[in-house]
């Protein structure tokens, strides 16, 4: 067998000269180089407008801040209960979401199987469905066994708050985890397998440590989504004082009673919670993950 490599073809320059079209070296008219600033300015205007809108929204809320109204709202035992329930339910639902999102994200990222497209579409249901419909679906689901057996303990009780938050937040956490696992090359697992790991060990020892920023991103995202969840909670858990009232439903109740300053006080509390969570996530390395 004879190996013919490009370096052995001594006629290459001659062949190339024969293949070159006659007008190949004809000089072309020089390009007119346009200034870059209109492009940058256009982009900056669009981006700046959005950032300004967000900042103005928060500033407008702060301008309505009234210390006396704040004291009245947060002195109210119902609101105090709703703050506690919000913090607790958001934390439980975020932890549950990550617990489910890690295996789901890993399987969807690493394996190809028949019906994967269908599973993918099902996982996106809570993201694309209007939140009220998600609540309605949960309510109907708990009419059927085996869920109906737990109906009295769950529906319109605090577990319903957690479940309503979890269903939506988990879908976002799954997306975050899947992106995170997609970014980790499978080559690491391959090497770990040849070094003596079984698949579970390769996951725990090699993949999961690299997915830590993704887990934190998923946790933050799930917590933030749970905090903002309103529709499914209202339909599935109701808004009963001292039982199922969370900050988002407190806001709704203040709105129904026409108390603008009370609404602002509750919303500022929610903004404060969101800022604290996002700041903590940034401190602990969320910047390393592109969602």
């Amino acid at each position: 067998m004879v190996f013919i490599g490009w370096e052995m073809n001594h006629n290459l320059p001659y062949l190339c000269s024969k293949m070159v079209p006659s007008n190949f070296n004809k000089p072309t008219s020089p390009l007119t180089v346009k200034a870059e600033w209109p492009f940058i300015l256009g982009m900056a205007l669009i981006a700046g407008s959005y950032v300004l809108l967000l900042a103005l929204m928060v500033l407008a809320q702060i301008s309505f801040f009234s210390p006396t109204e704040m004291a009245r709202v947060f002195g109210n035992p119902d609101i105090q209960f709703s703050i506690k329930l919000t913090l607790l339910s958001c934390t439980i639902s975020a932890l549950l979401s990550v617990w489910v999102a890690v295996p789901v994200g890993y399987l969807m990222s690493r394996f190809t199987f028949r019906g994967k497209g269908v599973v993918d579409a099902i996982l996106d249901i809570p993201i694309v469905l209007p939140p009220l419909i998600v609540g309605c679906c949960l309510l109907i689901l708990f009419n059927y066994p085996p869920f109906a057996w737990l109906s009295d303990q769950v529906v319109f009780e605090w577990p319903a708050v957690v479940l309503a938050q979890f269903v939506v937040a988990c879908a976002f956490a799954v997306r975050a985890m899947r992106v995170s696992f997609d970014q980790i090359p499978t080559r690491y697992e391959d090497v770990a397998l040849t070094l003596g790991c079984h698949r579970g060990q390769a996951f725990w020892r090699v993949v999961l440590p690299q997915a830590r920023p993704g887990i934190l991103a998923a946790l933050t995202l799930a917590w933030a989504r749970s905090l903002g969840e309103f529709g499914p909670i209202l339909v599935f858990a109701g808004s009963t004082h001292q039982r199922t009232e969370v900050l988002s439903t407190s806001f709704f109740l203040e709105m129904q009673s026409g108390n603008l300053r009370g609404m602002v006080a509750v919303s500022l509390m929610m903004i404060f919670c969101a800022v604290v969570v996002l700041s903590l996530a940034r401190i602990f390395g969320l910047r390393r993950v592109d969602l």
Partner: protein
Amino acid sequence: MIELKNISLRQGQFILSDVHWQIPSGSYSVLMGSSGSGKSTLVEIICGLRKPSHGQIIFNGNDVTHWRPAQRQVGYVPQDRALFPGITVRHQIAFGLVLRKVPDREINIRVNELSDVLHMDHLLDRLPEKLSGGEAQRVALARALAPSPTLICLDEPLSALDHDLHDEMCHLLKKVHAYAGITVLHITHSRYEAQRLSTHTFRISGGMVAPYQLGSAS
């Protein structure tokens, strides 16, 4: 002897058909072939990372076709080295030994021995992010060698190195082969590497593997 019998694999447009291949024990075998010819796929099949649709893989008389990668005692150094991020070089090398529950004292002896052979004592406490291309290559090699495999597969190990490092690594690979006395399967495009290192050379083309006679270096 590592033997591939009637190995076939079809994956989309890519086909390996009825591959017969014998790699002599203790040899430094080089597999050459153009891009997309299936060199890396064949190595993945040998390592147990990919299942062939048909055929048998025999390691020293044992049919290992259905064995898991961990059971095959094959060291694998991929082209991108795949050093585990956030783990020091010492722990990278010890990785396979820790899994086998080797006592700490023996792990330390083995790590020091390998770092001595591969001239990397000064790298042991570094993270992979802080290593140059040549250093990372040596660490990946040491990590694969640590559990004493019977075969080590090197997937284009020198392709990303500059000329000086390339020569240094060629020398080191020769030394490691002589030192460990194991079978080496080295994948490359480069005839130069094959001429410097191989005791046996093969070429894959059209989904078939055949012995290949190297001409003089150009």
